[in-house]
């Protein structure tokens, strides 16, 4: 059995499971954010009407808001706070960071566990050797909250083996975007993607993190990286709670093995209007932008902020561009201050925003007029997510975003790296 099969078997009290089977498994952690949390809470209290079985496993994080912009949203947050208090679940209010970063940094995510959440990027936690996937409100309200369980169809696994070394100016984010373009939107529906190979194993945990993040956009159920010493040390540094890591058997079977060598990759840009529209930088460079942003579920890491600083040291943001920086968590924000990056980037003309998901769904920021364009480290670029449906969003690495902010158009970061 592979890692996911072993975790699902253990969590459902079976010796073995096989792909295609439906199992009911114990859930170790449920991550909710402010929007989905509200919808889930309503179903739970209005339709399910049962006690919360394991409140300590449920975490709600306010990250789409950093501050309610109108009364409707204020009421939503107020009701979420009330829900959290009534049922004794964990609550992280606005300003603590985006749901996945806060979940990890507070030790809720441990190897070998089952993690679910209503954010579609929940598979990101496969980075730490979890079986992690996004479910809908009714699963959370109907079975996770009252019973600590959920049903799963055991997925077929595909192994994605990456080898090689990325060139200077190319980052793991570029590799990830290239993968989405190559596998294609919906190119791996229902599958479990195991990311492996020397390229993956050499990466630090926060860089590995970008790989399972993309699984939803290629349609997969989950993605994961088998835990190794780096994973264990990382999780140990965040929590004292015990955990029992799982790795796949030697004779694990995969529906397919996709082998890629990534050494030749150029920086990649995801172009409007969908996440599958990925091009090498040369094909997109020159498109004018008015907005640039580091932030979102995959961005705003300390690594991203460092990359932006690398580009912006002794340079300025182009006058026609607004470059917005959204740290992924309060801890990352304070770290960036300590490293002098907040000052450096502010002086270069960027603007800092509270730790959150930033422009994701444009609740506090990120609305654009028709024909305005943003380049960001966000995970999605569908039209209508950021103000006018005629606004455009490019997705790229922090290096490329920062280079574009300097140049006023989509730009190749290698121009700025000596």
């Amino acid at each position, binding site marked *: 059995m592979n890692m996911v099969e072993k975790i699902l078997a253990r969590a459902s009290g079976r010796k073995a499971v096989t792909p295609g089977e439906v199992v009911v498994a114990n859930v170790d952690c449920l991550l909710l954010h402010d929007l989905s949390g509200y919808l889930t809470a309503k179903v739970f209290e209005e339709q399910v009407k049962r006690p919360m079985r394991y409140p300590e496993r449920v975490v709600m994080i306010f990250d789409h808001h*950093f*501050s*309610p*912009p*109108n*009364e409707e*949203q*204020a*009421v939503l*947050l*107020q009701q979420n706070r009330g829900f959290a208090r009534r049922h004794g679940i964990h609550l992280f*209010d*606005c*300003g603590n960071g985006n749901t996945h970063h806060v979940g990890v940094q507070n030790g809720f995510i441990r190897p070998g566990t089952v993690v679910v959440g209503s954010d579609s990027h929940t598979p990101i936690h496969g980075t730490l050797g979890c079986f992690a996937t996004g479910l809908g409100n009714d699963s959370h309200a109907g079975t996770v909250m009252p019973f600590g369980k959920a049903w799963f169809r055991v997925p077929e696994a595909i192994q994605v083996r990456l080898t090689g070394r990325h060139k200077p100016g190319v980052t793991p984010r570029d590799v990830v975007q290239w993968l989405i373009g190559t596998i294609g939107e919906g190119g791996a529906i229902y599958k479990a993607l195991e990311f492996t190979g020397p390229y993956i194993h050499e990466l630090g945990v926060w860089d590995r993190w970008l790989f399972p993040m993309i699984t939803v956009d290629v349609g997969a159920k989950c993605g994961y990286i088998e835990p190794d010493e780096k994973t264990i040390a990382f999780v140990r540094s965040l929590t004292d709670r015990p955990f029992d890591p799982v790795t796949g058997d030697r004779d694990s079977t995969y529906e397919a093995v996709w082998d890629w060598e990534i050494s030749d990759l150029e920086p990649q840009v995801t172009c409007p209007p969908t996440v599958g529209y990925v091009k090498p930088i040369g094909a997109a460079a020159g498109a004018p932008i008015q907005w640039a942003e580091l932030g979102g579920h995959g961005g705003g890491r300390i690594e991203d902020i460092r990359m932006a600083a690398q580009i912006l040291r002794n340079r300025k943001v182009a006058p026609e561009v*607004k470059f*917005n920086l959204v740290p992924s968590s*309060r801890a990352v*924000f*304070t770290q960036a*201050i*300590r490293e002098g990056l*907040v*000052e450096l980037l*502010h*002086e270069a*003309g960027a*603007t*800092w*925003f*509270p730790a959150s998901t930033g422009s994701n769904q*444009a*609740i*506090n*920021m*990120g*609305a*654009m*007029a*028709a024909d*305005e364009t943003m380049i960001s480290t966000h995970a999605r670029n569908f039209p209508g997510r950021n*103000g*006018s449906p005629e*606004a455009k969003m490019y997705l790229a690495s922090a290096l490329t975003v920062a280079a574009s902010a300097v140049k006023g158009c989509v730009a190749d970061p290698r121009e700025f790296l000596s």
Partner: protein
Amino acid sequence: MGKAFAEKVLARAAGLSDVRPGEIVDVYPDLYMSHMASWRCIRTLEKMGTDKLYDPERIAMVMDHISPARIAKTADDQRLCREFAVRKGINKFYDVEAGIAHVVLMEAGHIRPGMVVIGTDSHSTIYGALGALGTGVGFSEITAAWVTGKLWMKVPESIKVIIEGPLARGTSSKDVMLKLIGDLTADGATYCSVEFHGSYVERLSISDRMTLCNLAMELGAKNAFVRPDEITRSYLGERGVPPGQYTEIHPDPDPVYVKSVTIDGRSLVPQIACPHTVDNVKPIDQVAGTKVNQVFVGSCANAKYEDLVEAARILKGRKIAPGVRLLVSPASKEIVARTVKDGTYSILLEAGALITNPGCSACAGDGGVMADGEVTLSTANRNFQGRMGSYNAEIYLGSPAVAAATAVRGVITDPREFL
């Protein structure tokens, strides 16, 4: 009999040798500030069918009330302003990242002693902190000024406010003003020019003078004034404006004041303006212990560098109370830079504050909105019903020190407990 500041400055700007209180004169302001309302001015201009500006040099635009945009319509309005500024050569254009208009224009050296400044914001009285006459107008008037260069003004009568210092421990310019507004009521200075004098004012920082002049609006004042001095000159000097570039206007030694009021700062205690009017002021012991859901350190009244430092002094090494949100919105980009550099920013962040980008933020309803039954302690200048969300929510106003102390305890708290 001599002339008060307002009479002298308006005579100068009207091109007349002598004006008297009550007289209506055509004034040519030196600067016309418009913020979020700028797009309306541009649309009105289009409607008037003219494209000629009297003097683009006198136009200042700051995109402060909603920054950045949350809906496409706002993004579109802001783009209209941006493009208009480029097309018309308006070089005093400050975009969504700059901060609150008043503070930004003062920091940039655009406000100088002896100027007459009109703005689409009632708190334009704040410009008195640099010895200028600042007053609020509607967007039609700004549009008219863009085109004709002038507007009608009634020459105000003047009120003298004498503040004696030094202030008692734990109090600040905010407490002085709340006390004054409580005593004189919300229309205590309607149509009047309020001049601040006295030993406390003479050695006062520009930041505190800004708080005084800003809050004079809540007395109904047309404008406010602090006599320019060495502190003014050095503030301007640091911003690249040498004394040769402005002409100070001082009141004569013996002007006619319709009213003279003295406040003794030496016996002051922290003051709180209770819901829903700014003149519903009580000494802090009468409201201490009131539970709050949110604390807001922001607005043109009290989100300046000195205000954030004051809050950080109390928050250093402490955490905000569980269940309380602390929202901090620095007034300008420059303030962000200074607080990051000296560690104030980190102190606030580590205490649990949520620090937004610079701008009007919750004071203009841009975030920090409350649901029914919630309570905010705010350092802003207004606590009107519905200003921060629900009509059934409450806003208390106090100084940055009160705000910090309140955030730590979760209930309205006298900052002297922490000093």
